[in-house]
C-alpha cells in the first residue's frame, strides 16, 4: 500500500512539474532573450526558432530584447524546448509567457 501511495505521489508530482513546464501555445508567445545585442546576430536566433514545430511566425525586437512567436493552433511546445533552441542560438532565454490578446 505504501509503495502504491509513493508511486501515486511520484506520478502526480511529475505530471504537475510537466504541466508547469508546458506553455499553452495557441497564439502568441513572448520569449525574453538575454544577450541579444546586435541585429545581425539575431539571424541565428530567428533561424533556430523557426525550427520549432508549430511556429508559423517570428518577430524579433532587438531594442526590447524579446522574440514573439506565433504558434499554430493545437500545437504544444514546452518551455524547455524553447529554452533549448534559444541556447543553441547562443543566447539565454529569460521569461517565456503566452501573450493574451486584449480586445
Amino acid at each position, binding site marked *: 500500500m505504501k509503495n502504491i501511495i509513493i508511486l501515486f505521489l511520484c506520478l502526480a508530482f511529475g505530471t504537475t512539474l510537466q504541466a508547469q513546464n508546458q506553455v499553452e501555445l495557441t497564439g502568441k508567445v513572448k520569449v*525574453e532573450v*538575454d*544577450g*541579444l*545585442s*546586435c*541585429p*545581425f*546576430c*539575431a*539571424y*541565428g*536566433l*530567428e*533561424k533556430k526558432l523557426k525550427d520549432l514545430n508549430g511556429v508559423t511566425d517570428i*518577430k*524579433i*525586437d*532587438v*531594442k*526590447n*530584447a524579446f522574440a514573439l512567436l506565433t504558434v499554430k493552433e493545437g500545437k504544444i511546445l514546452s518551455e524547455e524546448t524553447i529554452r533549448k533552441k534559444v*541556447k*543553441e*542560438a*547562443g*543566447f*539565454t532565454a*529569460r521569461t517565456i509567457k503566452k501573450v493574451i490578446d486584449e480586445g
Partner: protein
Amino acid sequence: MRELSVSVFLFLVVAVNVLAQGPPIFTDTPIMLGLESRGVRTFGNIVSRQKANAYIHPVAFPYNITNKWQVGIVAPFVSISSDGIGDRSGFGDLQVFTKYQIFQKDGKAKTFRGLIKLTEVFPTANNSEAPALGTGANQTNLSLVTGYVTTKYGLYTELGYNATSDNLPDNIVYKLAFGYPLLPQKYPPKQVNIFFELLGNYVLDNVGNNMFFAPGIQYIAGRKLLFESGVQLPLGEASPEGQKTNYVLRIGTRVLLF
C-alpha cells in the same frame, strides 16, 4: 631584414585581419553565432607601402560545430607590385583556425563574452621568385578575444601571441575596437555602424612596435548581408625606411548562406 619586413607585412594584413569575422571590421568578435554561422566573408585589402603596393583578397569559410566551437579556413589571393623587383600574383599562405567560447554573461540587450582562438598559417604560397607571395614560415597564433556588446555600443579586445618558424621573430598582437550604431536598432536590420579601432603588433627580438588607427563604417543591408569599409593609418612602425605603410584600405562583404 627583408624577410622580417615581409613577415610583419603579411601577418598584419592577412593572418590576423582576415580572421576577424564579426563586427568590428578589423578586430575579431567573441559572438560566433548569427554573424558567422555557416557564412562566407570576403573582402579586398589594398595595401600601399612606400615602395610596394599589394592587393590581397581572402575568402573565409567558418563553420560552427557547436554554438561555442567553430573551425574555419582562409584562402587569400595576393597580388604584389614592388618597386625595382617586379609584379606577382597567386595564392598566399593557407590558414586554418578554431575558436572556442570560454565564457558568456548575458543581460537584457547586452552580452559579455570571451573566446580562445588558435590559428595556424601554413607556408603554402609560392615563394620561388621575388616578390614572395607568402612568409615561407609556419605561424601559430593563440589569442584571447573578448567583447562587451550592447544595443548602444560595442567594446572589443584581442590579445594574442604569434609564434613563427624559420628564426623569424615572434609577435604580440593587440587590438581594441569601439563600435557605435547610428540608426535605431530593429530587426530585420537596416543599420549603419561606425568603428574606431587601434591595431597593434609588437615584434620581439628588439624589432619594435607597429600601431595603426583604423576608422571604419559598416552597412547592414538585411538579415544576411552587410557591407563594410575601413582604413588602417599608421601611428608608428618598426619597419625600415622604404617599407613603411602609407595606408591599408579594406572594402568587403559578409554573407550568411543558410
